[in-house]
């Protein structure tokens, strides 16, 4: 018993020491923000106050920030799965956007089905994202085409095609927005923190994290996936179907993006607007990287990103900086997040499958 407690204590200490690097990185990113505000803003203190405190100043902004994290959690999970298997999925933008679009038009078509329609529509959106990513997996499996580049190229083309469909055949003539028609009331998730946009999709996101965690660490397939990611050749000698693990994780990865897109529509937007998801795919990737591909860490990483985004949005509304300041802060995180030198600060050597 004492032994177990001792072991747990050691694990906690190790985890804390391992996160020192992450804290340093976040610290540098926030310092960069302070410097940027001092340089760019006429009223730097005001800008910084809105940036740091804006997202938590009232229920409205706080709920919106949590809401913003939802698609990032889905995307982060997707990328983590791909990365764990040694695949790169750079097509998040297109997978999320097309997933959202297909979920929306399915919802419009299945309007009379009620809650069964919700499930079917989300499933169709999920599969759309999944199949787009799986295509890159298949190309890699068959001809060793870099999935990193193909997923990016497919995604870029798909974004444009979806935009065309939204602005053309599927556009709602009744509004001035370039968007599809609104999905029926019965398809919309309940708001759980009025007056903010936060919807019950949050629960789905948390459940998804649990599911991915269990899949990766408690199932045979998850074990094989991680093993293949760590050492494909060893996995092959161990009798693992290596071809399958070049395609399946990519499918899952795209599927989570697609699901995230569908959730964003059913929970927040209610109609698929042209380019509504720009940046979400990349941010999902960033979240996975900060979380170092651990499903459990995806939630705090997504919250951090959502915090920066909504902070920037707040500062833009109430002060004199533009929203893109967020991408500079995010880029600082990207620059440093994989640094072996920074990660080593205070860390305990630990290697696990």
């Amino acid at each position, binding site marked *: 018993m004492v032994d177990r407690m001792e072991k747990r204590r050691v694990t906690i200490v190790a985890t804390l020491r391992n996160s020192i690097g992450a804290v340093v990185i976040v610290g540098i990113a926030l310092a960069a923000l302070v410097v*940027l505000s001092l340089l*760019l803003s006429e009223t730097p203190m005001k800008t910084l106050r809105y940036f740091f405190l804006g997202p938590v100043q009232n229920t409205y902004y706080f709920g919106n920030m949590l809401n913003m994290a939802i698609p990032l959690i889905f995307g982060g999970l997707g990328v983590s799965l791909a990365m764990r298997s040694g695949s*790169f999925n750079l097509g998040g933008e297109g997978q999320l956007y097309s997933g959202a679009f297909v979920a929306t038009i399915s919802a419009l078509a299945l309007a009379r089905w009620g809650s069964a329609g919700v499930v079917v529509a989300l499933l169709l959106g999920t599969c759309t994202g999944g199949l787009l990513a799986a295509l890159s997996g298949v*190309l890699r499996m*068959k*001809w*060793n*085409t*870099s999935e*990193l*580049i*193909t997923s*990016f*190229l*497919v995604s*870029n*083309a798909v974004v*444009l*095609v979806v*935009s*065309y469909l939204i*602005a*053309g055949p599927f556009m709602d003539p009744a509004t001035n927005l370039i968007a599809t028609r609104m999905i029926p009331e019965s398809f919309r998730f309940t708001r759980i923190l009025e007056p903010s946009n936060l919807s019950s999709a949050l629960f789905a996101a948390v459940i998804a994290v649990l599911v991915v965690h269990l899949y990766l660490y408690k199932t045979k397939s998850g074990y094989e996936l991680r093993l293949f990611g760590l050492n494909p050749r060893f996995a092959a000698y161990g009798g693992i179907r290596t071809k399958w693990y070049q395609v399946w994780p990519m499918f899952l990865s795209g599927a989570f993006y697609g699901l995230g897109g569908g959730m964003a529509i059913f929970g927040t937007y209610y109609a698929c607007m042209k380019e509504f998801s720009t940046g979400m795919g*990349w941010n999902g*990737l960033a979240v996975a*990287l900060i979380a170092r591909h651990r499903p459990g860490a995806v939630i705090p990483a997504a919250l951090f990103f959502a915090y920066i985004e909504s902070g920037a949005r707040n500062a833009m509304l109430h002060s004199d*900086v*533009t929203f*893109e*300041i*967020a*991408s*500079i802060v*995010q*880029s*600082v*995180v*990207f*620059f*440093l*997040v*994989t*640094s*072996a*030198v*920074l990660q080593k600060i205070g860390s305990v050597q630990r290697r696990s499958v």
Partner: protein
Amino acid sequence: MNPVAIPVLHSAVAIMTPLLLAAMGGLFTELSGMLNIALEGLMLMGAFASIVFTHFTGNMVVGIALGVLASMLLAAILGTVTLHLKSNVFITALAANLFASGLTVVLSFKLFGNKGVVVFDGIASLPRLDIPVLAKIPVFGDIFIGHNIFVYMSWVLLALCAWVLYRTPFGFRLRATGIHEQAMVSLGMRPSRYRFIAFLVSGFTCALGGAMLTLNLGAFVPNITSGKGWIALVVIFLGQKKPIGLLFAALVFGFADAFSNYAQGAWNVPADFILAIPYVFTLVAMVLFSIYTSRKNRVE
């Protein structure tokens, strides 16, 4: 020859130039053993900085020089973080792209109060060059004369790159770094030094490619590079990582782009589809190329 073909090919030669320039720099990083996906961001940085500095200094040469410097600075940050802080080059390069797209918009808002298209009225158009010898050759002459100075400069630079890579000790060592890092270390050389220089070179050529985009237009459009840096990366792969290969691969993409521009006017295809063509085309080229290589490897 078909009367449509000559204008299309003529504009293909112009369109391929930024790709060729970016791919050249990318070739250095690629041969040194790093996948540099930051070409896009470096181009964007160069594109923005060149036209802004030209606007403020009133001198295009100075503007381009400062633009090149800005892009090389970003490349130096990228190199330092990657090589000295030992980060994943892929992620840091992604950061450089994000940084460039953020910074250009933030600065354009700060300097011109505008996040959209910024038109610079006072900027003269790029000098065009007519090479009389070329003009005399039928068809070939029609395609290759009357381009702006960047086009011809890119050819000279390409020759220079080939010379540096294949005829100088520096080039040998750079390529050796990519082939066998440990061998370099055991010979007492520092691979990170060659890689750092390769990053700087890519900053240099990408900036020129970007500068051509904005100066040719006389305006800065947010995200004006629109995937050109990524296509340049594919040009490197398709060109089999050889200088002369880059030239042909870039021409293929230039042609695809020129053709889709033509198609837009001639057949009234929706603009979004036109914009998608280069990506689809690149994808198909990538796949065909990898089918070809995997067949070849199987035979060997």
